[in-house]
Every structure is written in C-alpha cells, then in structure tokens.
C-alpha cells in the first residue's frame, strides 16, 4: 500500500488520504477484508498527526469503505462491492447527463449520441 502526501496542494491531508484509499479500494488493490494500518501506525509512517488520520478514517468509515472493530483494527468493508458499483453508476449518470445536455444544446440526435457512446465503449 502506498500513500503519497503532498504539502504543496490545497487539498487537505485527510482528503489526500481518503481519496487515495478509496481509489485503492475501487481499483481492487485493496480487497474486502484486507487489513489497513491502524490510525496511529499510519500517522507515524506518513509523518502526520494522529487526528488527521483519524478524520480520514472516520470519513472512510462513514462512506462505507472501511470497517473498524475494537481490538482488531480496520478492514476494507465487506459491502463495498455493491457499494462501489453504486458509486460508479452514480458517477456515470452524472457524466451522461452532462453529455445528454451537451447533445441537446448542440442539436445532436439521440441516435448519434448513442452511436458515439458505443464507439467510446467498444474502443478499448
């Protein structure tokens, strides 16, 4: 597991932690049930204060990415497969609605839009 903390960005450190952890969970680098370092050991490793990591973990827990059990530490949450699906679908919907909006204002037909989407989808 790698976490890169930059002090040169306006993004708060706890957000840098949460976004990188989320990405690792979503791309499968971290799998359900995988242990993640304790707050205090992560704080030590990346040289930030405990309270900062604590906030990041609280956010991750709130969003359902990790679970913390007393005495056993934190793990990647079990329900996150469906959850990620949901997250991704939400993201897709957002982008598509933007695309639809653009198509409508540009006078591009639905068929043309579907054609374009199919092209992008099958390209890779």
């Amino acid at each position, binding site marked *: 597991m790698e976490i890169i903390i930059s002090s040169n960005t306006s993004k*708060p450190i706890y957000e840098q932690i949460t976004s990188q952890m989320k990405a690792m969970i979503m791309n499968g680098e971290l799998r359900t049930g995988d242990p993640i370092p304790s707050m205090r050991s992560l704080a030590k490793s990346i040289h930030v204060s405990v309270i*900062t990591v604590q906030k990041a973990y609280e956010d991750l827990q709130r969003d359902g990415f990790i679970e913390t059990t007393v005495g056993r530490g934190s793990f990647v949450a079990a329900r996150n497969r469906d959850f990620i699906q949901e997250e991704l679908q939400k993201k897709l919907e957002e982008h598509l609605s933007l695309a639809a909006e653009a198509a409508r204002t540009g006078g591009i037909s639905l068929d043309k839009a579907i054609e374009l989407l199919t092209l992008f989808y099958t390209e890779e």
Partner: protein
Amino acid sequence: MTYSLEIDNLTKTYPGSDFRLDNVSFSIPRGTIMGFVGENGAGKTTTMNAVLNIVKKDGGTIKIFGREMGDKDRDIREQVGVVFDGANFPEMLTPARLAKVMAGTYKQWDQERFLNMTARFNLDTGKKIGRYSRGMKMKLALAVALSHRPKLLILDEATAGLDPIVRDEILSVFLEFIEDEDHSILMSSHITGDLEKIADYITFIHRGQIRLTESKDRLIYEYGIVRCKAEQFRLIDRADMMAYRKRDYQIDVLVNNRAAFERKYGGMVVDRGSIDEIMLLLVKGGD
C-alpha cells in the same frame, strides 16, 4: 474523553515581577500531541514548571492522569518523561553513568531501551555530557525521558536549535511514542512547522493568558485569514472576527470558519493560515 493532563485556572506570580500566569486552562486528551506556542516570556515554561512542581502554583488545579501531583506522588512522576530546553544533566557524567543514576531512581528504567535509543541516535555513551553538542544533549535527554517508559512526555523547546535532519528524526520518535494510545505529549516549540506536522491540538498563550486551544486541522483547514481593505473591513461583523491586524496596505482578519465567511461576505479573499500567522494575529492583533 479521558485526559492525560488537565490544567484548570492555573495562576502564578513571581515576587518582584509583573509577569503573571492568568487563569491558564487547557487539557490534553489521552493519545494526542498538544503543541504549546507563544512568544518568549509568554508563560510556556512557567506553565510546564508548575505542572512539574518545579515552581509552586498560586491557584488552580493541575491533574496528571486524573490526579493532582504532590511531592509524595512519585508514581505519577515515574510516568512522566521530561525534556527541558538544554540537557540539564550533570556535565561530568557520561551517558553510561547517567543511566546508572536513572536506574537507581526510576523503578521502570529500561536499560535495553536506553541502549537502543542511544545507538539509534549515534550517541557515544562513554563521552562526558559536558562535551556533547546541543543536538546530542537533546537526543540524550529524549533517550532518557523515553527509557523509563512514561505515558506523558513534557517537552520544553526540545527541537530548538537542531538541524532539520535531527528534528525529523526526533519527530519520528514522537510519532512512534504516540502509537500507543495511552501516550500523550505536551510540547512547546518555536518551530511551528514541526507542530504543524505532528500536533493534534495547538494551544496559544500570550502574556500569561491562553488565547486559544484548537485542533490543528481545524486551524489549518477551517480557520482562515481574510485579506481586506479598510472599506471591506468596516463591513465585517465584529462577531465574525477572532482577531485582526492592520498593516500598511491591508488588514488581516482571523476567522474561524473560512467557508461560512466566504458565503456571507462574497468577494473577499480568505487565505488558509499557517500556525505562525495565526499566532501572529492572536498575539499582535486586536479583537
């Protein structure tokens, strides 16, 4: 929440001096690092001295691990590690001999840990302490403080005058110490960059009074400094300002909720403040 150290309405005066600690109150939650900042003579050392019974307080209560520490409460001192600004060890001794002195004093003295720490810090335990450099003395003091397995570390300017490499090494040691959630640290420092890295909370003291205790992340991510012109300044509600400072061409205003301020007063520039800048405003500014 349980606290490792609770200071409540601490007052202290010295005969023949107009310095006064004025109802100083703050607490350190267990498992956290409290940074203690303020200019020279603001009362940091006096507060720490009062906590350690080195000076006698005039009033107020100080609780360490929930208990007031009197001269007889040796068991509390057994759990408190102290590093002063300067090593404070007899100069004629070598660290090896100092360890013998400590072994005869602390019940919990852990010689193996001491040897590990001195090795890690590259300290020559056979050399007289008087011939140590300042950096070496501070590292030795830290090794001693950690070798009796304390739960609370009280550090008065422990990283002052050290080069960045040594300071980074020492900060690692602090974060290692705090890995145990029963452990806490009170550290005063002029080097607010160090505190910005590792402290969980910051307490600002000015002329013997506590100006603010706040979580460091809130200070950095939620507090803000408004850069405004005189006419903009007049528009700001006094209740929304924590402190302000008039400069030649602009007025800096400290606010405790940057986002809310931006919503309420559109068009004003609000910067994220560093601990240094927030301190400057709290100390030099009016409110």
